[in-house]
């Protein structure tokens, strides 16, 4: 993998795990750490373990780093399951001057290389699947295919109806503000498990409300320039044509904090250094984060990331 980036002139970088602030996201909970200035009895300085290296790497891009990549640990509180460990390994990279479509081609090349040239060899069927051209399927198309509902145009009532059909208990009456919540449930219960079988698949053209740090492309309807890579129903990577607008970014963070407050979660500090960097002007770029534990898990024919972690959280 390092050779892959070296051959393409992408520079390896290293950024801090202990940060003053990170992404503000309704559903992403950083692990807080209390440091003390001037020794253990000094005043507390609250820091957070990075949920991803995104902000730091974008600050490097603003500084003129050119294309960069990093393999690092990331920490997310409360995430534990067959495909989750609160501490995990991310491969993240950025391509100045590229859009997300061009980056998807590179992700495809990398994944194909990893599965076809894996040490000891990935399982034969996985090699065969990865050798085929990856599918590119729009978010809307994937929902229509799996459920017959249009995530952009169907009413929340229709979406809730589809959810009931999938054994999702409606916890309350359908509300328009909850559209993303319902879509998310449908994605988990019915759509994801049809993605990336036979060959890997990119899910793309997300609803603008799920753009996170992606640009929104005007159109009818407008779509977020975001993609996720799926192999056999498992999400491996998430990428964006990166948002450059500092005001829009700040508005999204404020909005996320609003939702956190409403959900009874602690608000998170805004990353002022990151926003400052955006104001200075980040080059147009595309970036992607990949869950390396899951990639490795598939490459060795495992079924849980515990298969490739030395000591999962319960034994760490």
């Amino acid at each position, binding site marked *: 993998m390092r050779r892959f980036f070296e051959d393409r002139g992408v520079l390896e970088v290293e950024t801090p795990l202990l940060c003053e602030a990170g992404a503000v996201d309704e559903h992403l909970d950083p692990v807080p750490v209390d440091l003390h200035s001037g020794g253990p009895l000094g005043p507390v300085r609250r820091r957070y373990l990075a949920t991803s290296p995104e902000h730091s790497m974008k600050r490097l891009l603003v500084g003129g780093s050119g294309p960069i990549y990093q393999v690092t640990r990331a920490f997310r509180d409360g995430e*534990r399951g067959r495909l989750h460990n609160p501490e995990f390994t991310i491969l993240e990279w950025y391509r100045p001057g590229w859009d997300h479509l061009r980056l998807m081609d590179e992700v495809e090349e990398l994944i194909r290389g990893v599965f076809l040239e894996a040490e000891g060899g990935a399982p034969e069927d996985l090699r065969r699947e990865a050798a085929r051209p990856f599918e590119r399927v729009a978010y809307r198309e994937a929902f229509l295919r799996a459920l017959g509902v249009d995530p952009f145009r169907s009413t929340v009532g229709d979406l809730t109806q589809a959810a009931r059909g999938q054994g999702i208990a409606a916890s309350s009456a359908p509300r328009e503000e909850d559209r993303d919540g319902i879509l*998310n449930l449908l994605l*988990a219960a019915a759509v*994801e498990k049809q993605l990336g079988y036979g060959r890997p698949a990119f899910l793309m053209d997300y609803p603008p409300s799920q753009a996170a740090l992606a640009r929104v492309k005007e159109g009818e309807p407008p779509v977020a320039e975001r993609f*996720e890579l799926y192999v056999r129903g498992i999400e491996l990577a998430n990428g964006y044509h990166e948002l450059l607008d500092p005001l829009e970014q700040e508005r999204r963070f404020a909005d996320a904090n609003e939702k956190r407050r409403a959900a009874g979660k602690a608000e998170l500090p805004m990353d002022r250094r990151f926003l400052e960097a955006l104001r200075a002007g980040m080059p147009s770029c595309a970036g992607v984060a990949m869950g390396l534990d899951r990639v490795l898990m598939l490459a060795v024919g495992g079924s849980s990331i515990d298969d490739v972690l030395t000591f999962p959280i319960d034994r760490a």
Partner: protein
Amino acid sequence: MATYNTSEFKAGLKVLIDNEPYLMVDTEFMKPGKGQAVYRTRLRNLLRGNVIDRTYRSGDKIDAADVAEMTLQYLYNDSKNWFFMNPDTYEQYSISKENMGEAYLWVKDGLTVEATFFNDKPIGIDVPKHVELVVSYCEPAARGNTATNVRKPATLESGAEVQVPAFINVGDIVRVDTRTHEYIERVTKS
């Protein structure tokens, strides 16, 4: 009523859905995209045995089902109800044929079973994986045929019918697998 939060989900929980008791067979933490965490669960209906898939959002609650287990001893049946006794308290319980499911095929006087109670009423029993029963009827053993691959039907004292090797006779005690209905071995020759 007691409830379970999604963070308490694990296989083995007994929960109440639409007023019926379910056993959580499997649960999986998922976090699609950048969205809220969800829990996909697989649940078995303790009354009917069917399995359903349910998905819950992080923070959702489900009611706990008042389900308990008790070890009981089989007494007798009147072909509508099967009667059992708690060997410690001598209290008797009846279980309808419907709730017995297939278990009625394997019970004989004195057999110890695990009974499941829902709202203090017995709703079903688990028989041991292997039981030993007397053969009450089968064709006579073919003389000299000791091959184990030739099978013939035999009726057991509990009423179950299983395929047994040709050398088995009426009165033999055989061990059978209650899940697969398969003959395992002869325990005692009559």
